[in-house]
């Protein structure tokens, strides 16, 4: 075979090789036709080839390749481009080129000829080769990457050429040659050669590519917070910033004395201060900090060994926790300024009471006098000399019955004030006249109590056997309740003025009673003992409720005009507001007084209440009670009223509101009565 062939030639050659027809070469009759025609070129070729080959290699098998018709060998065909022949045959005759058809003709011919798709033009031999069906099959198999012959089995079992059966010994028992044990001389020579080349720099290895050491890690925008997202990352707390004491030259007050430094030794090691301030007067005298590396090391340990926890700190402004109080201006009117002073008593004024119409005010004092003042002018209208310290004064709540109940020592006097028109006076005189000292009462009562006629003041004198501390009128003005705190059995007595009857409270009191109050609208009676307040229904004669004050010593009680709310003052200076519908426990605790609360009071129409105390102050509160049961009472502290001075450790002893105006009267131990107006 020629070493290199043109493409077309090779193809034809291959095909020729494959051609099974070749085997029949000898059978063909030699034609000897060299001027081969297009039509029968296949036949010609074979005949020629067989002819030539017979001469050259006879020994070749039947599968020998068919030599080309042309004998020019492997020369560029360009050389024959301008010649009329394409080469020479074996006999040395020229092979003339065929007529070259123009493109149109050849195209038409190929279009007409249905077999044109398996015709190939052989440039080397200048002939057209028609592929047989077999050849096409071969080509297809080759294209698929299979062996060209369908019969060929590439995976045929291996048949060894040598029979190993029953062989006892290896084929060769020759000892290992020495050359296998000595290093190869050739190799060492080659190595030396390479080494020299490397040294000379003739051989260069691929250097690892130098990458720029730094690059913009964060890009243009330095927002790469998402890097840490996948980790449960908590940033470490920053190191503490230094204070003044860590300065190299701190103020003298930061420097501990030697004693203090010695005392550190007595402390636990954890409590000892880590850093002891020192003073260096100049820069050059500052030494190296001995714990610098240690501190840094400890910080490192903290950073990678300490568990970190995100602590949720509640950062609430304490102001925001306070309930929103309405503006004081919106809660006007309320008393805030002292408007009048009523002076005349010689000693502490223990009690005051305002006439239901609001024109007069009565006061009882320790100097044994009861005085009546005109509210608006401050003029003292009348004075009664009782002779004993007046504990309590109370106006009759009926406007048509201007009488005054006064408790002084063990007596209760019912005084005729002399107000009112003539008819009223007549009636009062009838009422207050007792013909003969009556003893029609049950015998056990008479020994303790007696209804007497007082000639001096022209009034009724109820003589008790113990000191009476307070007197309270029922709202209808006929009943009158007195309190003897020293007695347990007969502590609370209820007197009927019109019938001159006296009866005991038909209940057992647990503890000493301290204060009394009638319900403003219903027949309910409040008795405050030292710890509790008991509420009795007088008609049904039974206990309705027990209010637990949680106080040590109750001093006073007042009932809201609507009747469902009660305030209780105590000797600890604490005030309790009870909403009786809500609970028997206090609804609101107001601990504002520093000393004993002496009295508490509700205003009859305005949403105001007040407390007065021995610390010389009286507090005025806004206490709105809503008709809607769902809404809790609104309590707002309004004003602290000062002005009284203390004497004998007592401050303000009594307070009471004006029945119509938002005015507050206070009676002080400094023997004055003050009127605070809005």
């Amino acid at each position, binding site marked *: 075979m020629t070493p290199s062939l043109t493409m077309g030639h090779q193809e034809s050659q291959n095909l020729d090789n494959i051609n099974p027809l070749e085997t029949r070469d000898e059978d063909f009759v030699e034609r000897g036709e060299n001027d081969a025609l297009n039509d029968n070129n296949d036949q010609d070729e074979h005949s020629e080839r067989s002819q030539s080959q017979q001469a050259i290699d006879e020994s070749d098998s039947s599968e020998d390749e068919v030599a080309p018709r042309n004998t020019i060998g492997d020369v560029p065909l360009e050389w024959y481009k301008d010649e009329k022949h394409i080469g020479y045959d074996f006999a040395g005759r020229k092979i003339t080129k065929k007529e070259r058809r123009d493109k149109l003709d050849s195209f038409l011919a190929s279009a007409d000829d249905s077999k044109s798709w398996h015709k190939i033009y052989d440039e080397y031999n200048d002939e057209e080769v028609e592929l047989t069906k077999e050849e096409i099959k071969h080509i297809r198999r080759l294209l698929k990457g299979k062996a060209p012959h369908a019969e060929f089995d590439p995976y045929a079992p291996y048949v060894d050429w040598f029979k190993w059966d029953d062989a006892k010994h290896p084929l060769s028992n020759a000892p290992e040659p020495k050359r296998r044990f000595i290093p190869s001389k050739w190799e060492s020579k080659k190595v030396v050669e390479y080494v020299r080349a490397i040294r000379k720099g003739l051989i260069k290895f691929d250097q690892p590519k130098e990458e720029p*050491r*730094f*690059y*913009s*890690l*964060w890009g243009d925008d*330095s927002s*790469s*917070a998402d*890097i*840490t997202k*996948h*980790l*449960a*990352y*908590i*940033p*470490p707390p*920053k*190191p503490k*910033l*230094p204070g003044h004491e*860590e*300065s*190299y*030259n701190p*103020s*003298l007050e930061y420097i501990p004395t030697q004693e203090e430094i010695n005392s550190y030794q007595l402390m636990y090691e954890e409590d000892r201060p880590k*850093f002891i*301030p*020192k003073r*260096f*007067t*100049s*820069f*050059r005298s*500052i*030494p*190296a*900090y*001995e*714990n*610098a*590396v*240690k*501190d*840094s*090391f400890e*910080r*490192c*340990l903290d*950073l*990678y*060994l*300490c*568990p*970190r*926890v995100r602590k949720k700190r509640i950062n609430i402004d304490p102001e925001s926790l306070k309930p929103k109080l309405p503006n004081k201006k919106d809660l006007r009117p309320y008393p805030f300024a002292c408007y009048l002073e009523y002076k005349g008593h010689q000693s502490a004024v223990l009690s005051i009471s305002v006439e239901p119409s609001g024109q007069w005010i009565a006061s009882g004092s320790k100097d044994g006098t009861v005085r009546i003042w005109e509210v608006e002018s401050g003029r003292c209208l009348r004075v009664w000399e009782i002779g004993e310290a007046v504990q309590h004064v109370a106006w009759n709540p009926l406007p048509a019955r201007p009488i005054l109940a006064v408790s002084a020592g063990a007596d209760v006097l019912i005084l005729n004030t002399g107000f009112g028109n003539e008819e009223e006076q007549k009636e009062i005189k009838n009422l207050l006249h007792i013909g003969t000292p009556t003893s029609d009462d049950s015998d056990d009562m008479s020994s303790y109590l007696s209804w007497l006629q007082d000639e001096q003041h022209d009034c009724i004198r109820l003589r008790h056997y113990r000191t009476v501390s307070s007197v309270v009128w029922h709202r209808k003005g006929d009943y009158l309740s007195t309190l003897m705190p020293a007695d347990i059995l007969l502590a609370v007595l209820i007197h009927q003025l019109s019938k001159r009857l006296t009866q005991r409270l038909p209940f057992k009191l647990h503890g000493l009673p301290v204060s009394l109050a009638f319900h403003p609208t219903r027949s309910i009676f409040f008795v405050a003992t030292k710890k509790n307040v008991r509420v009795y229904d007088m008609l049904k004669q039974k206990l309705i409720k027990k209010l637990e004050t949680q106080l040590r010593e109750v001093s006073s009680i007042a009932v809201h005009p609507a009747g469902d709310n009660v305030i209780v003052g105590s000797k600890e200076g604490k005030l309790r507001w009870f909403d009786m519908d809500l609970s028997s426990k206090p609804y609101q605790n107001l601990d504002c007084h520093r000393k004993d609360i002496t009295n508490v009071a509700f205003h009859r129409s305005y949403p105001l209440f007040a407390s007065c105390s021995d610390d010389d102050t009286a507090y005025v509160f806004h206490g709105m009670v809503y008709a809607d049961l769902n809404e809790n009472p609104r309590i707002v502290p309004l004003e602290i009223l000062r002005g009284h001075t203390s004497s004998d450790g007592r401050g303000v002893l009594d307070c009471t509101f004006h029945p119509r105006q938002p005015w507050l009267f206070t009676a002080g131990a400094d023997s004055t009565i003050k009127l605070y107006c809005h």
Partner: protein
Amino acid sequence: MGKPNHYRPPARKEKEGNAAKYVMRAQAIKILQVSLSDFRKFCIHEGVFPGEPKKKVKGNHRTYYHLKDIMYILHDPLLEKFREIRAYKKKIKKSKAKKNDELAKLLTSLAPSYKLDMVIRDRDLDDPLTMVHLFAMLPAIDRLKIEVKLCHEWQAYISRTHKLRKVFVAVKGIYYQAEVDGQKITWLAPHARQQVLTDDIDFNVMLTFLEFYETLLDFVNFQLYLSINVKYPPILDPRLEALAADLYALSRYFDANHRASVQEPQVAGSSVKLKKMELQGTVPRESLLFVILAFGGVVSWEGDGAPFSEADDSITHLIVDRPSQGHVYLSRDYVQPQWVYDCKGTDRLKEPSVKDPSRLMMSRKKRRLAEAIEIGKQRKKDHVERLKERKRNIEAAQKLDKKHKKAQHS
């Protein structure tokens, strides 16, 4: 061998809650298949720290790690690199054991290294700066040269862009606070003294941290230098470098590379800008150079490589720390180093109240206190004197009396 155990434990339940979220340290090491020291390194590089589960399943005295963190480490390419290095080290060890020194040398020279740039994440700069400044003060070995370089680069950037806000001189060192990109960064630079090294410090841990911090600061510096259009790493004048005047060399480098993008000083008062200061003798040169430059001032020092000579007429202030010994220039204010830091703290140049360099420079408060103490002492002294005088008078009077009496007797 005893009887074969035929008991099979019941199928394990799926873990829930904290048991599933946390793993113990030993477990974590088992998961990662690394040694404890490598695990510590990973913790430091990746910023992994123990967690505090609400319910400690395995007991109170165990270290709990987030499983999430451990799994994150597990998938980090650095882990593979560490294993590779470990295997490689075995090779070196083996060759050394076989006395094959050449191979050992060759292997050591070709040892694989790792880069930490992928593990850098947003961490604050306080700790890195403090630590790098501390190591820059440790005895100068080659390993620590890079720390010095990093410090100077950072300081040069801060002083160039005038981002220094506060300086506080403490016993522990000098605290600086700068504001970069709206972040307040505080670091502590120890005083330039021989540091005390104790035995109870595990330097492996510190060096691991340092390794990480170096990479971090390198990248941070690169980013910062990029933001002011200066090439990083800077190339310094070898003469100045040899004189250990890196900061000055850096500032010269900035001047050369400055492309009008550096902001003009906004704070620290333009009044100070033209002041020329000269450092003398024992003052802390590095720190003052940094602060005065950050201030917008011009500074020089005694010695080689100084920007201008000591005799320069335009020098306005001389910073001294000890009573002046040489020639005293009347045209200059002699101030203490503290004065410079005080000026920095108040953002305004203070009037040096004391011209006499021999007196201590004191802040107003301290001065008042000292005066008060002085007055107190004076009063006490006066009081004692008065008492003494009274005593003397009394004695004199008694003597006179005696004389009189004697005279009368006689």
